[in-house]
């Protein structure tokens, strides 16, 4: 009975998820411990725009734009290091480009408007016990679940 429930909820087990989550936390803690920075991933979008745009909305991030590039580059290379050693090697998504592009635009708007994303609000904010972050995470989780179910129900796949 319990075994069936477990197989239903976690068809791929729990180890990779828990271990991966712990490593995401460790990366965050490493940066926080040495610098005091709560690193998130979405401000990079705006701070990087300050290299090519003079708009004050982006220019305000100039002070942090260099380290954010370095942080994001670290994420890319860290994922690559895993994938091409212990992981499954190169992998391509089957999710359709229009979904990725349109979803990406909305993610870009929403994370910057809402002051954070899955890492800033979801990991650092929730880890800080921030009510703002908890509300934001509850909001995007509920909405995303609804939208994903709707899109699937409309027969859009992958």
């Amino acid at each position, binding site marked *: 009975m319990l075994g069936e429930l477990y197989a239903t909820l976690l068809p791929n087990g729990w180890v990779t*998820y828990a271990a991966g989550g712990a490593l995401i936390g460790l990366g965050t803690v490493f940066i926080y411990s040495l610098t*005091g920075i709560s690193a998130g991933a979405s401000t990079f979008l705006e701070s990087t725009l300050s290299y090519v745009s003079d708009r004050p909305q982006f220019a305000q991030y100039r002070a942090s734009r260099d380290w954010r590039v370095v942080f994001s580059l670290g994420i890319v*290379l860290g994922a690559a290091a895993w994938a091409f050693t212990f992981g499954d090697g190169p992998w391509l998504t089957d999710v359709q480009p229009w979904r990725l592009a349109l979803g990406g635009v909305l993610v870009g708007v929403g994370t910057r408007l809402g002051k954070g994303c899955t890492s*800033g609000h979801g990991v650092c904010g*929730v880890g800080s016990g921030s*009510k703002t972050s908890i*509300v934001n995470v509850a909001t995007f989780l509920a909405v995303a679940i609804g939208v994903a179910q709707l899109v699937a129900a409309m027969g859009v796949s992958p």
Partner: protein
Amino acid sequence: MVAKDHESHPLFLPAVFVGGLVFGVGLAVSEMARPEVVLDFLQFEDFGLLLVMGGAATVTATAYAVVGRLRDSAPLTGWDYERRLKSFDRNVLLGGTVFGVGWGLSGICPGAAYASLGIGNVTILWAIGGMFAGAYLQGWLRAVVAGDESPAATAEVSD
């Protein structure tokens, strides 16, 4: 966070880089770099994502609780150890909603998208391009709407 000279210590950027590496390994190991896995969660087919976010937040919460008691300030910057607390306003709800629609449609969020590129998924450039376009769009909209939050119509530095 106050903008300060972050070039102060020679080990600052290397430390951020190493942290990013570990963060990226975590995203790859946890399968969050695969939009399909995230979409499986959102469709209630695999609840692993809760373990990922819960595990990461638990580790981080421990650090927020402990690190500030061990030291007064961060060694590489001299900055205080502050928790990540953002002010609440309607944009938190509005932004969370818009992000939720995008996440539910694509199965991808910023950090996971960078990691996805790392695992060789060049198709994800559609999403990353979209995110930059979206970030630019909201910056432009803030300027148009101006006065929404502050005189400069600026977003807070968040993640």
